[in-house]
């Protein structure tokens, strides 16, 4: 029989597809990569939901405020004392109140977000570049290389994270300085993030490296570098990106813990951790100094976790979808 004509093949395509993909679901899933067999019911389950968009709105709002903080008229200078803000309760003038030396708590929270978000994003980004590369290569090449890498990561994970962070901050800070710089804190938290990110990337890589399409690419003469970059990486990125958001939340907590202990960025600079620490002493009289940064931090972490979780579920590619 000669090669089937398009019409002929088309009919058989519709009839012989085993009901896996119908014409309408092809249309419906056009944008959703990896959702091969998503029926209407399944799509409903996989919907991101209202909560997701509220969380996204919170994050976008906070990030916008943080970035634009120096230019927005309603955000005061976080380090200038104002007479009317001295120990003031929240009011129309000072939304989150003022602290014991008259600084506006709202603007300090926003300026603190700059530090926390920057460190969170930077540490996770660098962590993924380093840890992701290690995990990707370990999961792909296996063998002794993998054992060495994963062994090293396990050793790092075996240290209690906070103790390791304290040790590293002390060790990496220039001699004579009490507090660390933003760069040092980012570096320390990157080092702390690498092992788990490497392990998670490796696990995702393992599940793809054994797939038939990798063998197929190899059988066509693709080099290892090409297979990693073109076949595996695009498959690993969506779940990793979703996890990155959760990782940012974890790093923000870690930074908060460090600065609460006075080991992060130096004190006059507002960070969430040292705002909370600062308000701790006068919790009875002026609770807002601690509670507002706590609340903002809580909501931010919740938002990151929720968005990350929803995305992870969304990108959780089912076997049938391949």
């Amino acid at each position: 029989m000669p090669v089937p004509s398009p019409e002929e093949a088309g009919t058989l395509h519709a009839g012989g597809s085993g009901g896996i993909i119908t014409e309408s679901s092809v249309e419906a899933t056009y944008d959703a990569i990896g959702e091969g067999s998503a029926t209407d019911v399944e799509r409903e389950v996989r919907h991101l939901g209202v909560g997701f968009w509220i969380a996204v709105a919170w994050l976008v709002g906070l990030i916008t405020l943080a970035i634009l903080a120096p230019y927005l008229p309603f955000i005061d200078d976080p380090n200038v004392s104002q007479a009317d803000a001295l120990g003031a309760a929240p009011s129309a003038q000072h939304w989150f109140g003022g602290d014991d030396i008259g600084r506006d708590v709202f603007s300090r929270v926003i300026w603190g977000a700059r530090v926390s978000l920057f460190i969170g994003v930077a540490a996770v980004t660098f962590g993924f570049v380093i840890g992701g590369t290690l995990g990707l290569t370990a999961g792909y090449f296996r063998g002794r290389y993998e054992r060495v890498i994963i062994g090293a990561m396990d050793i790092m994970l075996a240290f209690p994270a906070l103790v390791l962070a304290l040790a590293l901050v002390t060790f990496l800070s220039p001699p004579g300085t009490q507090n660390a710089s933003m760069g040092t804190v980012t570096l320390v938290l990157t080092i702390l993030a690498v092992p788990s990110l490497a392990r998670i990337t490796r696990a995702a890589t393992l599940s793809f490296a054994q797939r038939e399409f990798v063998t197929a690419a190899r059988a066509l003469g693709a080099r290892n570098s090409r297979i990693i970059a073109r076949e595996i990486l695009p498959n690993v990125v969506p779940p990793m990106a979703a996890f990155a958001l959760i990782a940012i939340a974890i790093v923000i907590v870690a930074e908060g813990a460090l600065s609460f202990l006075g080991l992060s960025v130096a004190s006059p600079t507002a960070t969430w951790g040292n705002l909370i620490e600062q308000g701790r002493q006068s919790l009875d009289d002026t609770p807002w100094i601690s509670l507002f940064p706590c609340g903002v931090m809580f909501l931010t972490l919740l938002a990151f976790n929720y968005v990350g979780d929803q995305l992870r579920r969304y990108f959780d590619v089912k076997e049938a979808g391949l």
Partner: protein
Amino acid sequence: MARKQVTLTRSEVDTSRPLLEVEDLRTHFLTESGTVRAVDGVSFALERGRTLGVVGESGSGKTILSRSIMGLLPTRNVVRTGSAKYEGTEVAGLAAGALRGLWGTEMAMVFQDPMTSLNPVMKVGNQITESLRHHLDMDKGEARETAIALLRSVGIPEPVQRVKEYPHQLSGGMRQRVMIAIALACGPRLLFADEPTTALDVTVQAQILDLLQAQQTERHMAMVLITHDLGVVAGRADDIAVMYAGKVVEKAPTSVLFSSTRHPYTEALLKSIPKLEHTSHTRLEVIPGRPPDLVSPPDGCNFSPRCAYAQPKCFVEEPVLETGPGGDHEFACWYPVGTPQGAEALARNQADAAVTEEVA
């Protein structure tokens, strides 16, 4: 590039020799429970433009055989011996770096399951153009045109739209067509089709097989068609090799194999195919027992424990693959089907069985 790649210059190639010559190829896996003899001494030759059907049950070593020749096996805990010559060049046991020059352009493979052998996050078109651009140095537009032409040639409707789609937007049959297009993209001379229709609906199977055959004729390409279904190779292969427990037990031109079956295993396989003339609810003939343990295969003939013809000799001495009278029919059996010895052996076994039944 540290390692030297195998490159073939067309003028150097000796066309009087077969395209692929496999000699006593063995692939053993070292596992914790012992050495698995997945491929245990397979030899065959394949001429240009011809099709060899490799038939056998699951676990008989068909897939490992093809991957051994291609060099697609994992490198750890694998022992490979024997020789596989492609165009006279030894390819067995070469490292991946050296084989890369042959993959895609000289040898290619169509895999069993089109659901998993396409990259789910890459557009179909890119999966085809990638090797075109790499191996044949085509520019983007040229590669795209070629990809569209390839998709059209494998019978995919609206190829211009299809190149922009992802694998999950295609049906199983369509994906297998895409896989074939990818495998054929760089014009290989040897195609391994590893159970290309097993994962597909019956209605699509015939189309895919016809497509493979049409492409093969058009390109004068040799093909190794691996299947567990004798019906698949019946009308399509020039020669058939029946594998059992890592060994070829019978090999003959297709018509000869079907008309004068010699090996009891082949006979049993043929008997187990349902036939149209059977009345409905006829019990299918099955082969009793299970395939042998490849770690410690039985003494003598591997098939002896399941064989209707087995005689004491079969449990002790292993038959070797020998050319029978006629010249092109090879089989490994002490009491071949269709010979006086075979008939006598079967009669003896049936008589024994009758006696045992009476006693019981």
